[in-house]
């Protein structure tokens, strides 16, 4: 029924079903905005996992404590990149610091990010590593000696009272850090949840769902990094730690899945005006990314397999294999979750009369390669961080010298 002339001008028009407002043809938040909440989710999740060890004294998580912090830092450093790249005018990005609107959730990004980076994460890592940094600054040679000297910030006292002070401050920072981590990722949920114009996004549960899916992805990330680094270092994996991580992952997933189920049930029950187009959205445009990827592959299969691997008698190698595969499936699932929220919310028209498509590109600024780059870059940064601040110094009291090339 569409005018052929118009369709020839823009061939993608033929993929539109029903009616969309003319300005809605262009999807504005694409792959980059899917990657951003995924990354901050990993940061929040990894940090909260680390703080479990510190504040709630879950000693069995000790082997992954420093690794989680470094992973959180690596991903946090990359987090602003997708946002700045995505802006129409990236050179004006600093305006958020100059004239932030107090009514806009997005405006708080700069400040929450700066706060979390400087006051929470960097400080916590610094206080935790200070003793080793001082020792390395004295024992190393060449360029690394200078690096560690700068990192000490002149505070070279590692006497008992000084270290006790560090431990106390570290605990305070972690306690402040937990709500800060909630804020760092929760505000993203609020950015979506507070848009009354979009019935797919507008929900009270949105920040909560974001948070718990963040915890799921963060725990799974630490799982994966611990397993991969242990494999590369040819070191024994601590099964107690892995089992505890699996438990926590399972609990987080149960809560997350329940929340999503609640949202779904609530929508279906109230059956508001938008229910028709949203149902069509799920069945036609989001079937693979929601039903298959997010729910089956990303939630149900991992929950079942973790329950089985953790609570049933299995040989350790099998357990580790199941944990590993599950963690990967979880990452796929949570990425799909972000995709379904961000892209899904733009695939239907605000007139509630039509659906459009998102043209996923390979190259270009919003392409898959850029997304892959932004997701691999933190791992590269993590590698460098692990070289500068090895997180496995504490294992068995062993003092491992890091292999820094000077």
């Amino acid at each position, binding site marked *: *029924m*569409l*005018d052929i*002339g*118009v369709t020839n*001008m*823009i061939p993608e028009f033929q993929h539109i079903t*029903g*009616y*969309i*407002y*003319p*300005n*809605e*043809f*262009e999807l*504005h*938040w694409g792959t980059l905005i899917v990657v951003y909440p995924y990354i901050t989710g990993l940061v929040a999740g990894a940090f909260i996992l680390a703080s479990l060890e510190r504040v709630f004294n879950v000693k069995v998580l000790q082997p992954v404590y420093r690794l989680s912090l470094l992973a959180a830092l690596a991903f946090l450093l990359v987090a602003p990149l997708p946002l700045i790249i*995505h*802006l*129409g*005018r*990236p050179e*004006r*990005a600093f*305006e*958020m610091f*100059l*004239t*932030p*609107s107090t*009514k*806009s*959730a*997005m*405006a708080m*990004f700069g400040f929450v990010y700066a706060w979390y980076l400087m006051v929470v994460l960097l400080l916590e890592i610094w206080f935790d590593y200070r003793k080793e940094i001082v020792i390395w600054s004295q024992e190393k040679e060449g360029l690394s000696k200078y690096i560690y000297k700068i990192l000490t910030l002149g505070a070279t006292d590692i006497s008992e009272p000084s270290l006790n002070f560090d431990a106390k401050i570290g605990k305070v920072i972690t306690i402040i850090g937990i709500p800060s981590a909630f804020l760092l990722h929760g505000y993203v949920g609020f*950015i979506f949840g*507070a*848009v*009354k*114009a*979009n019935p797919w996004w507008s929900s009270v549960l949105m920040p909560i769902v974001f948070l718990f899916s963040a915890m799921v992805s963060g725990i799974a990330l630490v799982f994966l990094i611990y397993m991969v680094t242990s494999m590369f270092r040819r070191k024994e994996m601590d099964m107690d730690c892995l089992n505890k991580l699996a438990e926590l992952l399972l609990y987080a997933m149960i809560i997350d899945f329940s929340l999503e189920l609640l949202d779904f049930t609530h929508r279906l029950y109230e059956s508001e005006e938008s229910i028709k187009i949203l149902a069509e959205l799920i069945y036609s445009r989001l079937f693979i990314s929601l039903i298959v990827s997010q729910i089956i592959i990303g939630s149900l299969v991992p929950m079942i397999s973790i329950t089985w691997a953790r609570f049933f008698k299995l040989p350790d190698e099998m357990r580790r294999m199941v944990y590993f595969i599950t963690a990967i499936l979880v990452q796929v699932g949570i990425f799909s979750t972000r995709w379904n929220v961000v892209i899904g919310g*733009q695939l239907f*028209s*605000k*007139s*509630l*009369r039509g659906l459009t498509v998102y043209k996923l590109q390979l190259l270009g600024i919003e392409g898959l390669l850029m997304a892959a780059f932004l997701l691999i870059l933190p791992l590269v940064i993590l590698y460098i961080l692990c070289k500068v601040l090895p997180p496995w110094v504490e294992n068995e009291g062993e003092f491992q010298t890091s292999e820094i090339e000077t």
Partner: protein
Amino acid sequence: MKKNSFQLYRRDFLKSCYKALSFAGIFYLSFQPEKLLFSRENSQYDPTKHWYGMGIDIHKCIGCGRCADACKKENDVPREPIYFRTWIERYVVPIEGETYVDSPNGGIDGFPEFKGDIDILKTYFVPKICNQCAKPPCVQVCPVGATFLSQDGVVLVDEKWCIGCRYCIQACPYGARYLHPVKKVADKCTFCYHRIVKGLLPACVEVCPTQARIFGEVGLQSSPLRRFVRFNDIIVTKQYLNTEPKVYYAGADMEVR
């Protein structure tokens, strides 16, 4: 060797200092007041004495598309069929089943013959435009204050300040905003602000052959808009969202969203 490398380092450092300073200087200077055609201080215009709105009479719209065309010509809107400040929708309500809505190129080239084997109950045109809400959700979400509600009731975009984050485009319930493909900032209907402050009508109102669009002031006691609102049964779109739109529709059917 050491001395040379230090000199090199100092030279590079100073170079980057100069670069940073000149960049900062250029940015600072770009916000100095330039010679403009219109200056609020020099004109008689007092924005606090106006509060603009628009009335649209569905019974009068013939779907000729002159308004959408004039808007693009007046405001240099890109001609592609995906950027519109105003557009016309055609509704075809069947006796049974889903209402069919279309807007080929916003209605600028008219509407092709409706091909469909359904029994039509009624059919009509609905011009759409930014509603210039009194409680604009787009202004609420702008992180840097680039879009704002002016004192005379028009929601405007500062194209020199907008960072192109597109949050306002997501927040608009009416699909009235788009990202300008060249300037890379948000853009939307401005009620032809550059015309109304000089006493002219917006371009779409100027060219409408049947006077289906009425421009005026919401608060003025004697004005065509006041008469329009008094005489007709008025609805605004998506009233339940409480955005308080200032574009008032007369004769709009329940199918209009």
